[in-house]
């Protein structure tokens, strides 16, 4: 048998994967618009969805909405749509950044939540939000999140070094998480607002509830910048599978790769965390599940994890919305329940391979 050698682009050769991931996201996105945001509330009908979008797209056309349809449209455009957009884009950011950090650090345990990047982003966001800075400058919250995430990522590299050993990396993550978590609590406790102290759970466990389009406009452009930056490092990440020296000999500029990934991770995760709080383990679960599907290619893993992350967060948010509980569960609780076992499994597997060597 003569092996087929295809001249293909970076994305080529995984047609079915892209098709299934994109359709999965379409279905989940559609469900996020149709289904109610709490159990016991009515779903929207497809015809209403269509009508509402047509009305929104062509406001000049002579649409006459009944008051009920107008309410449905308002709920769709001001509540469900921003929630769906944020679920997809935040999931995309977390999956993408997880996959890129794993490629850069050659470690399947690298994840923005575990490494403390997310909680440092949350610290930056809480500082700008509770200080009242955001009241005059709404952009300050995502920018604060990005600054926090950037400092944590740089700190991680200084603390754990370039070729980080798993234990060093995880310990550095624990240290950053502890510091950022403690300081976030401090910020909330020092706030003169009596409600602030109770809001630690939002920042640590994340939620997409009651977000509005203003949150989308604040965070999505910055996340997009982050995606472009991380995506530009794709081929470099592939070469990095051979180690830093060989990658350099193949024409990869390491300072450039680090800038692209650290900068991109800070932008995407910082902006995401600033509007939804920390949603953990997404960047761990998704690349882990998809790695063998993309034949372990660190470059193809990036878009795959982005789409997978979007699907996971959207699905988790739907579950949180529809679980019949007294109070809406924080989405990070759900991702932690799924993700922590993965984490244990990966640690156990790493230990086994370490023992074998």
């Amino acid at each position, binding site marked *: 048998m003569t092996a087929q050698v295809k001249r293909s682009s970076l994305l080529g050769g995984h047609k079915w994967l892209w098709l299934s991931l994109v359709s999965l996201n379409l279905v989940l996105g559609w469900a996020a618009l149709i289904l*109610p*945001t*709490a*159990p*016991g*509330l*009515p779903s929207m009908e497809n015809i209403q969805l269509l009508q509402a979008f047509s009305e929104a797209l062509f406001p000049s056309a002579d649409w006459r909405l009944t008051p009920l349809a107008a*309410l449905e449209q*308002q*709920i769709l455009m*001001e*509540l*469900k749509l921003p929630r769906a957009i944020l679920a997809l884009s935040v999931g995309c950011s977390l999956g993408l950044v997880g996959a890129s950090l794993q490629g850069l650090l050659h470690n399947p345990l690298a994840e923005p939540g575990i490494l403390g990047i997310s909680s440092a982003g949350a610290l930056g966001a809480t500082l700008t*939000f*509770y*200080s*009242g800075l*955001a*009241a005059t400058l709404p952009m300050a919250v995502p920018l604060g999140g990005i600054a926090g995430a950037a400092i944590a990522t740089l700190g991680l590299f200084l603390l754990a070094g370039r070729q980080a050993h798993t234990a060093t990396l995880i310990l550095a993550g624990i240290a950053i998480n502890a510091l950022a978590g403690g300081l976030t609590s401090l910020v909330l406790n020092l*706030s*003169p*607002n*009596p*409600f*602030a102290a*109770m*809001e630690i759970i*939002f920042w640590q466990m994340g939620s997409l*509830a*009651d977000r*509005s389009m203003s949150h989308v406009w604040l965070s999505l452009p910055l996340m997009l910048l982050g995606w472009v930056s991380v995506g530009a490092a794709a081929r470099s990440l592939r070469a990095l599978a051979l180690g830093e020296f060989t990658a350099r000999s193949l024409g990869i500029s390491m300072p450039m790769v680090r800038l692209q990934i650290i900068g991109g991770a800070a932008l995407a995760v910082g902006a995401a965390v600033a509007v939804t709080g920390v949603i953990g383990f997404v960047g761990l679960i998704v690349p882990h599940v998809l790695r063998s599907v993309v034949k372990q290619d660190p470059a193809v893993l990036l878009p795959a994890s982005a789409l997978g992350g979007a699907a996971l967060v959207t699905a988790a948010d739907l579950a949180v919305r529809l679980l*019949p*509980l*007294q*109070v*809406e569960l924080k989405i990070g609780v759900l991702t932690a329940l799924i993700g922590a076992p993965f984490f244990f499994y990966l640690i156990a597997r790493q230990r086994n391979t370490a023992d074998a060597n």
Partner: protein
Amino acid sequence: MWRASILLIASLSLNAVGQPARVASLNLCTDQLLVLLADPNQVASVTWLSQDSRTSSVAKQSQSFATNTGRFSDIAHLQPDLVLINSYAAAATRQALQALKLATVEIKPAATVAEITTNIRVTAMALGQTERGNAMITQMEQDLAAIESAQAKRNTNAQPSALILQPNIITVSSGSLPSHLLIRAGFVPALQKFSVGYTNTEAIARLRPDLLILGDHRNKYPSLAEQMLDHPLVNQAAAQIKIHAADWICGTPRAIAVISQLDTARRRLTAPSPADSQ
């Protein structure tokens, strides 16, 4: 059911005119009754919350009094003649009061206008200020009667729905004082029309209340809880009024003022438009 146990009245050490000389209160609601009914020199201690205008309707009058944090240890050294406590006071507080054989009056939080008048009557009696208490009750009844007769004259059966909304999109449960005052003013609490385990923004929007009742205080420093009230789906949903939280956290004569305020809002909502009027 109202239950005020006046304990150990016999052992009260009373002054010349038959009043307890030094009275301490360990709860925001009893604070307010104490400040309203007692002579200023009778007040030994009130909670620090009673000095905060956000939570207390007697903040101004309370400024000069010694404060406590609601714990017995704060007032033990004052050796009060009488201690006013809430019926939900901590077990430790009760035990300490009993151990020292201090005269105690326990007041149940009022959830209706009738319970408010009962609480006033009991507190006034314990303070030896029965006349002041009766005058206060009479005034309340007169004000309420005036509102109700005006309502009767308007002769409208329209019962608009109203929703009390607090930060974090928490609404007030039925059976509470605010809910009772809403009904007294002729509103239907909107939540009764719709059953969800908890409220969220979509549920609020779907309730489509005629009136949204918000607090009048906004902290200078932001919180997510208060930010949720700014969500366009909530904020633009209905007519809004703001009620000063201190007026209905505790049952005081201010409750009548709240009914009056709600009545005004209802009149505006149900007023027939000029075209409909004969």
